[in-house]
């Protein structure tokens, strides 16, 4: 079967994070928190997980005095997510036939 089921996207929060980063060049921590409705700690650990897989990268900037962490998907992350998507689609197609 084409595509790869990626363990990194097994968790729903990580799947959502990656979905957002596929269509947004950058997304910051607080916006993630709002849209995903998760706690700081939970979000941070999932982001850390994706980051150690090499799927996302971040840079820290300051807006006024507030620190802001912007995340973006790496090329490897986008490829991996696409492979995961292919896997899901093939799974659905095979189920139909």
């Amino acid at each position: 079967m084409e595509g790869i089921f990626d363990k990194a996207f097994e968790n729903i929060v990580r799947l959502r994070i990656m979905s957002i980063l596929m269509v947004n060049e950058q997304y910051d921590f607080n916006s993630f928190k709002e849209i995903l409705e998760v706690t700081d700690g939970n979000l941070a650990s999932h982001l850390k997980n994706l980051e150690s897989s090499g799927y996302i990268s971040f840079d820290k900037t300051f807006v006024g005095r507030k620190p802001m962490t912007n995340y973006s998907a790496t090329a490897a992350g986008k490829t991996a997510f696409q492979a995961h998507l292919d896997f899901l689609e093939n799974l659905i197609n095979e189920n139909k036939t």
Partner: protein
Amino acid sequence: MAKELKSSFTLYLKVLLKMKKPEQELAEIKSMMERSTRFLSLSGLSGVLAGIYALIGAGMAYYWIYFPNPPFGFRTSYIQEDQTLLRLLVTACAVLALSLYTGWALSQRKSQRTSSKLWTSASKRFISALLIPLVVGGIFSLALISRGYLIIVAPATLIFYGLALINAAHFSLGDIKYLGYCELALGIISAFFPGYGLITWTLGFGVLHVIYGSMMYYKYDR
């Protein structure tokens, strides 16, 4: 043997559990992509109200310019009078301000109801995509007025508004672009038929808004 059977059974169970999920997972991915890029709290009702404001404004304009003649006459009007022009400008600005305020207020209400934030990166992108052509068009139309090219103001506003809608449709409900196409078509028609400015303007900003707003309301808001 029993152990083997058990392990193959758990594998089967695992596959089954995963089989149930892919549709949900894809739907989840799609909804996340939409929610993070698109401004979905736009209310159809605000379109209807904006249309009604425009119709009222157009009625007032008709009364000042043409009354009691039918609104087709070309250059039988006294639009060149400064007083009339000023009144028309004030009316147009009032209609615009009221429409924007209504749009904002109703979007806020809708975002509260769907418990989503109003001021997100998606809504900011929507606003800037909408406002850049709109503001440029507005200033350009003011320049036309100040130069006395009144004949081309109605088509210019319609065309710029249409372009703004098509531009902003990428960041909101995609259906908005069809309203944009209609405004563009009206603008072009209006450019070739001078003297019908008030009519095309009424159709574009009044009637189309009411029709489109109510369609959006029935499709998304109920």
